[in-house]
Structures are given as structure tokens and as C-alpha cells.
């Protein structure tokens, strides 16, 4: 035998496929990955401290910057946590609007996330650009309703900033007419491709027990076979009124995560259809007019509210001391927690697999580093 030597490589912080400024300190033996150490914190910008200095409403636009793909869902989660803290009622119509935005975000997020994952796998951007095309249409809707494409800043305590009108509804229905076709196209592109199967099946396996002990959530956990979805486990907003399935995987490999995300996009479409059917009957305005948005002073106490973000359980923990800004503000970011399982998922596979596994976790560094 030739004497060989292990090679330590820094993948990142500047690297085409680390999804932002993320560093993987990788030890490889030839092409086989021996050890992986995730290093992050390059994007730290004092989010939680800022949340304690700002007033409650001032912090809303900062939550946009956490997971910048799903600012709608971040807003929703933060607003829910403040509402829980201050005991604010949310009108039904506002709940429905929030659900519609959440599910549009979910489609947007999964489409791009899968595109990026396939891009990491080496499919030259076709899947990614198809995803970005759909994202673009949804972002146009967001822009129409909130005034901004990505940093929506849409939710308010007790509702949402603006009501949706007929134009938004017809445009969304128009978009939704094309969605099933898009899902089929996207699935038909690579799902049964021999190369895709070779690259994704049995790669990055995360067994159920390990996933649970890492407290991984979202599609990554569901792909490992745990049917845990906060929309079902602890129904918030009006999710208990919809009929939808929770797709789960069997093995917990990259391929399962791919399939689970596609299935979740289809379920999001189902929820959207039902939400639009039920929307006209929903009472109340788009916002609770009694809430003082600017000078909100919740009573002393604490609250933890969570929603099912496309990446997992997104929770906001708030402690109030009765003043205009939070005493303690903590974000439970799903990307960050899911990322901790990366090293165990990658060990023993090839260097090329590490990128695909990272892509299959679907992280956004804005949320990981806060």
C-alpha cells in the first residue's frame, strides 16, 4: 500500500455552493469525507440584541432579513408571538390572508431550494431557473400586496398591513392554474433520472432517532419518517380547517427530502385552493383596529409562538417587562438547528455528496447567523 495522507480543505466561506458565507472544514481521504466541521457566524449582525432595543413594531422589518426567502412567514411567526404575549385577537380574514401568504411562500421556497440542490448536484441551472421563474411570479404578487418583493414587512399585530383585493385574488388564481403543470414539469425533469437516483438515493441518510435527537424539524425530519408538522401538531391560524396530507419519507436520504419537498408543494397548492374557497365567508377586516401598533406595551410575561416555516419549526420567544420593547428576544431558527446534523449526515460519503447534502438541508445563512 502506498502511504496516503489526509487532506484538510476549507470549503467556504467564499464558495459557489455553500449557500452564503458558510465554511465547512473538511478532512478528506482521497475523495472520501473523514470529518466535517461546520463553521458559521460570518453573517452575525446582532439580530436578537436589536430586537431587545427596538420597539415591537420596529422589529418587524428586521425579521424579514432572517430567512429572506420567506419574509412573509417570519412576519407571521413574530406577529403571532407578540399577539400571544399581548393577548391580541386576530380577525378571521387576516388569518386566511396570512395562510395564503404562508403557503405561497412555501411553494416559492421549495421550488428554489430544490433548484439549488439540483444545482449543487451539477444539473446546470435548469431546475434552479425553473424554480426562480415561479418565484418571480409569486414575488410579483407579494410586491403588489405589500410593496416589497422580498422584504415584505406585511404582518401587523392583529392582522396584516393591507387587505387583499380582487386583482390579487384573480392574479393568484391565474398563477395557481399553472402550478400543477409546473409541479409535473419539475418532477418530470429529473425524478426518475438514473443519475439523479445514483446521486441522491442512500446519500446523506439521517436515521429517525438521530434526527429526533438533533431536534431537526421541517422537511428534513419528515423525510426521515417522522410525520411532525406544526400545522397539524399545534394548529395555528386557521390550519385546522384545511384538508391536507403530511408527506413523509422512508429512508431519510437526499432523495426522500427531494420527494417530500415536491409533495409539500402540492399540499400547499391544496391548502391555497381551500383557503381561497373559504376566504369570502371569513369575517372581520384584515386587521384588528383596536391594537396600538406603534406604542404596543404588552403586559409582563413571556410567550413562545412557532409556525411551520418551509425549513422547519420557526419560533420566536419573547419576554416582556411591560415596556415598549422586549426584555428578551430569541429566535429558534430552523436552518441553524438543522445544520447541526450536517456533520453526521456527511461522514463516510464522498466530497461531492457533502454539497448535495448541504443543499438538501436547505439553509439560509441569514437565519443561521442572525
Amino acid at each position, binding site marked *: 500500500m502506498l502511504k496516503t495522507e489526509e487532506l484538510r480543505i476549507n470549503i467556504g466561506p467564499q464558495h459557489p455552493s455553500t449557500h452564503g458565507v458558510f465554511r465547512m472544514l473538511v478532512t478528506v481521504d482521497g475523495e472520501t469525507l473523514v470529518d466535517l466541521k461546520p463553521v458559521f457566524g460570518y453573517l452575525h449582525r446582532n439580530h436578537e440584541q436589536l430586537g431587545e432595543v427596538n420597539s415591537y413594531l420596529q422589529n418587524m422589518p428586521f425579521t424579514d432579513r432572517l430567512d429572506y426567502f420567506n419574509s412573509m412567514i417570519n412576519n407571521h411567526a413574530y406577529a403571532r408571538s407578540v399577539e400571544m404575549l399581548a393577548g391580541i385577537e386576530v380577525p378571521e380574514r387576516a388569518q386566511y390572508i396570512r395562510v395564503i401568504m404562508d403557503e405561497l411562500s412555501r411553494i416559492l421556497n421549495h421550488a428554489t431550494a430544490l433548484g439549488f440542490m439540483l444545482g449543487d448536484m*451539477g444539473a446546470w441551472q435548469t431546475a434552479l431557473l425553473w424554480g426562480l421563474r415561479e418565484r418571480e411570479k409569486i414575488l410579483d404578487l407579494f410586491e403588489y400586496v405589500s410593496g416589497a418583493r422580498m422584504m415584505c414587512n406585511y404582518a401587523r399585530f392583529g392582522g396584516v398591513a393591507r387587505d387583499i383585493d380582487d386583482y390579487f385574488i384573480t392574479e393568484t388564481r391565474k398563477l395557481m392554474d399553472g402550478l400543477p403543470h409546473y409541479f409535473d414539469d419539475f418532477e418530470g425533469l429529473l425524478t426518475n433520472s438514473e443519475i439523479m437516483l445514483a446521486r441522491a438515493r442512500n446519500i446523506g441518510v439521517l436515521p429517525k432517532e438521530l434526527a429526533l435527537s438533533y431536534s431537526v424539524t421541517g422537511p428534513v425530519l419528515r423525510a426521515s419518517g417522522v410525520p411532525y408538522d406544526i400545522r397539524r401538531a399545534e394548529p395555528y391560524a386557521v390550519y385546522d380547517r384545511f384538508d391536507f396530507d403530511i408527506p413523509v419519507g422512508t429512508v431519510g436520504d437526499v432523495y426522500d427530502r427531494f420527494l417530500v419537498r415536491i409533495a409539500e408543494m402540492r399540499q400547499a397548492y391544496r391548502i391555497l385552493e381551500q383557503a381561497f374557497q373559504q376566504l369570502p365567508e371569513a369575517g372581520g377586516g384584515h386587521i384588528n383596529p383596536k391594537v396600538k401598533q406603534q406604542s404596543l406595551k404588552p403586559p409582563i410575561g413571556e410567550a413562545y409562538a412557532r409556525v411551520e416555516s418551509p425549513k422547519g419549526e420557526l419560533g420566536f420567544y419573547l419576554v416582556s417587562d411591560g415596556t415598549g420593547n422586549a426584555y428578551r428576544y430569541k429566535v429558534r431558527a430552523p436552518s441553524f438547528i438543522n445544520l447541526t446534523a450536517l456533520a453526521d449526515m456527511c461522514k463516510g460519503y464522498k466530497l461531492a455528496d457533502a454539497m448535495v447534502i448541504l443543499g438538501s438541508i436547505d439553509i439560509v445563512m441569514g437565519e443561521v447567523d442572525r
Partner: protein
Amino acid sequence: MVETFQQTFGAPLWLAVVLASGLKVTLILVGGSLGMMFLTWYERRAIAYMQDRRGPNRVGPQGSLQPIAEAIKTMTKEDTTPLEADRVVHFLAPVVMLAATVLTFAIIPWGNLFPSDLSVGVLFFVAIGGLHTLGMLMAGWGSNNKFALLGGMRGVAQMVSYEIPQVMAVIPIVLMTGTMSMQRIVESQSGFGGLGWNVFTPVGFFAFALFFVASLAEGERTPFDIPEADSEIVAGYMTEYTGMKFAVFYLANYMTNLAICFITASIFLGGGNGPGVNELGGFLGGFLSLIYFFIKALFLFFIMVLIRATVPRLRVDQLMGFAWKFLLPLVLVNILSSALWVAIIRWDQQAQIFTQWFGAPGTADAPNFVRLGVAVAVTIMINLGALVMVMGLNNRASQARMHTTDEELALGL
């Protein structure tokens, strides 16, 4: 061309040879780089169309002058060398790459217009094709960068695996035509009104498919673009190159692809042969053959683009498994069936040999079409049987691997 210089301009022989080869080399160098420029534009526009984008469409009509703008950009960029790099090797690597690539253009039969005849053309192609691996390894080693080193190593491993199926995929054609000269191989396909291409025989079709797949690996095209896998090892062996040196790598890469398309078109798709070429004859026929040749090569390049826009990249171990466990057995079986093909088609000659050796009665010479039918049936059966068998074996192997993983999962490992 030498004669033209001698007769028309009255140049002495040595001057004519120098002038003729100088002209040819200049044509190839200029044409190759212009062709490469066109190809980059073509690829980007085609992929953009597949991805609902517009692609480069600003510089010149339909953006066709985009490559020129980019050439100017790369030429004006700073040329850097890493501090710890092996400067000589680092400098020479792109040169070696480009030289190896340009040499392959020497044997391409450009329709009937510029015949170039090398009696061992096919051998020359595979020999030179292996040479640019050296450039890759030099770049990987000389850059003193871990990504570059990984890329160079991957490149060498890939080439070592793929040269063998690629060489062996051509052997059936050499057997059938009895020559290694590209010009002769093209000429041998001029039957049936210009449509007697090798790809229309079962053996030729299998050889074409195998050769093209192996050539994708040689040209570092998706799904085999492992040495420069941009999502894994940044840019592979090219990571530490900037400006013109990077452009030279790029140029070499696309010229290799162009050469592969031309050579595949000549060996399997009849080169410049097509309906009407023989009938027209002369300069016009030659021109038509050149057009046919370019259309075929561009069609092959379009397939490359289509593959690149669709499928993901294979992993390096999977790639080698594919080469050794899938391509190689099929290529070997194809050689066998091509031998049978030759034996059956030329049965009358064999019959004489049998009579001479064994004193067997000279068999009745069966009519041509019967022999052809038997040959087609036998070779299709052998090749398809081999394909099914190899696929089955590979599937069983991969399923077995999956099964163990499931068991491990059940144990909670």
C-alpha cells in the same frame, strides 16, 4: 495544396510545403478559435432557451458578438500566478492543453474540400486525446491549490477510465472498413446514395452511442464534468488561473468538444456524405459535403448542450464504475459482434478459405440481402442481450447495496 502552390505560383517544393502547411495551420487555429467562440454563444443561447431566459443578446445581432466582447475582457484582465505555485508548470499547463487539442484538428476530414489523409488517423486521435490529461494534471499540481489538485486528480482518474472504452468503441469501425484513415472511413460510408453511414448498422449504432458517451467524459461535458465541478471544487484545475490563461483553458475545452463532434460525425455519421454530394461532384459537391459535415457536428454539439441543460453530474466513483462495469463490457461485446458482422457479410471470401483449409464444399453463395439480414439479426441480438445483461447486473449490484443500507438503518446504525 502543395501542388497548387507549385503549379500556380511556381514556388519551389520546400516553399510550397511550408506555405501549404502554414496556411492549413493558420486556418485551423483561426477557424478553431472562431468556431469555439461561436459554440460558446450557441450553447448559451440554446441553454437559455431551455431555461426560459434570453441569454446573451446585446452585443451584435442576437448577441453573436458576445464572445468577442468577452475575449477582449479576458485579455485585459490581470494575469496572476499564486505565490507558492510552481511557476513553470503553472505557465505551461494551458499551453499543453491547447497544443494537444489543436493537434486533433489535423486529422479531421473537412468534407471533400480539404482532404487530409493520415493513414493512422483514428489512432492519432485517441493518442493525442490522452495528452491533454497531462495539461490538466500540470495545472492541478502547479497551482498549489487543494481544489486544483483534486480537480487534476479527478481529471486523470476520469481519463484513464474513459480512454479505454473510447478507443475500443472505434475498433468495430476499423474492422468493418479495414482502415484507420479518417478519409477512408468517410469514403466507405458514401454508399446508398450518401446515406450508408456507419450509425445505420447495428454494430455502428452501438459503437456510436458508446463512443459518444466516452467522448463526453473526454470533453468534460455534463454529466462527466467532474474535474471542473463548479459546485464542489470551485473550478477544479482552473481555479488559480485568470485572464488569458483561463481563456486558453476554456478555448482548449471547447475546441476539444468541437473536435469530438467533428470526429464522431466523420466516423459514425458519414462525415460529409449525404444525398446529392456524389451527384453534384466537384467544388459544389465539396461545398455541400462541408455543409453536411457542419450540420452533423452541430447536431452532436446540440445533444451535448441538451444533456448539459438536463442531467446532474455523476460522482467520481460512480463515473469510474460506469466506465469499467457498464461501458467496457458492452464495448468488448460490440467488437465481437462486429467481427461476426464482417464474417457474415463477406461470407463468400470466408467460404473459399474454409474450402482451402478444411476441404469443405464451397457453400452456395447466399444472396446479399440474406447475408445482410442475418448479420443485422445476429448483431442486434448479441448487442441487446449484452445490454440487458450488463444493466441487470449493475442494477442487482446497486440494489444489493441499498439492501445493506436498509439493514443498517433497521439496526439504528
